[in-house]
């Protein structure tokens, strides 16, 4: 139980630190900043686990784990899962979610209702739908998955490997249309 409680505390500390950093500093690469903050909480978790008593001075005996190392490793796994599967995904959705952006645009419109044409123009806080595609292409260029040569976009070695992996998975899972 100690591992789980410390994992929950570390996760909350991590998201509190992310919130403070995002509010105080203009961070250009936010996902990388989040990862850095998460990594910084790992030694804190380990130190807290090692330095605190097994019962945290509040747990009943039946909740104290005799295998301390395993309990500590389990807590660390939970902390990592909460970050990579939780907070980082919340950020990714808020920053890049296509469907979510449409829902927010409708919600933020004066009449709280948009036609398809209005949604197209209002997309991304008024940037329009064309911007969405540009943003994806810029992202692929900046991560070196594709490069521009003579006005054409080509897959790099990294992009080719990614395309093979994801294309293979999509074919195997018989996914042909994004859902």
């Amino acid at each position, binding site marked *: 139980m100690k591992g789980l409680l410390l994992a929950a505390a570390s996760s909350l500390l991590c998201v509190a630190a992310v*919130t403070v950093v*995002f*509010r105080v500093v203009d961070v250009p690469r*936010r996902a990388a900043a989040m990862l850095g903050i998460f990594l910084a909480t790992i030694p804190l978790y380990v130190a807290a686990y090692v330095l605190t008593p097994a019962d945290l001075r509040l747990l009943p005996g039946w*909740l104290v784990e005799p*295998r301390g190392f*395993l309990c500590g490793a*389990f807590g660390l*796994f939970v902390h990592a899962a*909460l970050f990579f*599967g*939780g907070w980082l*995904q919340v*950020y990714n*959705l*808020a*920053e*890049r*979610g*296509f*469907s*979510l952006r*449409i*829902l927010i645009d*409708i*919600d*933020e419109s004066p*009449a709280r*209702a*948009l036609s*398809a044409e209005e*949604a*197209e123009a209002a997309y*991304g*806080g*008024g*940037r329009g*739908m*064309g911007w*969405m*595609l540009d943003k994806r*292409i810029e*992202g*692929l260029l900046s991560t070196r*998955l*594709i490069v521009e040569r003579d006005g054409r*976009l*080509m*897959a790099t070695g990294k992009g*080719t490997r*990614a*395309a093979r992996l*994801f*294309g293979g998975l999509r074919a*195997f*899972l*018989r*996914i042909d249309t*994004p*859902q």
Partner: protein
Amino acid sequence: MNPDALGTALRAGAAWTAAAVVGHFVVFHFVRVEHRARTVTLLFALAAVATLGTCLLLDVDRWRAVYGVVVVACGFLLYMPFYYTVAASQSVQLVIEVRAAAHGLSLAQIRRRYPVEETLGGRLETLAWAGYIVGVGGRFVLTFKGRLVSRPFRAIKKLWRLGPGG
């Protein structure tokens, strides 16, 4: 009582999580699945129940059996974003198409492949089908389910000072 209750529970959780992932691949490969996200969720829910059952069969106390379920829940948290990247990411789709074209693609060709109206129309259709929006007098409004998603994310975007995004 099992002397290695925690270890047994964690191993059971890990094994059933792996079974859920294998099950996902097998089911999706052999069956044309309509409700994909729901099916993956169901597979992990079954894994959680199986973990509980396995723990109780192996004499693990109830409290530590829950740890096994936590392993399945964490596996689900980590697996779903991966699955969505494979299934729905437009960046992934783009890089697959760029790689498939023998001489790459120009920006104009990409724009032709992703016509704005069709892309938006398709997504609006999906959102309506999933019950997040509903058409009223030629316009789309959020349903209760849609507001339930939109409002917390609006608050997060404000709290974290994120741009419009999308």
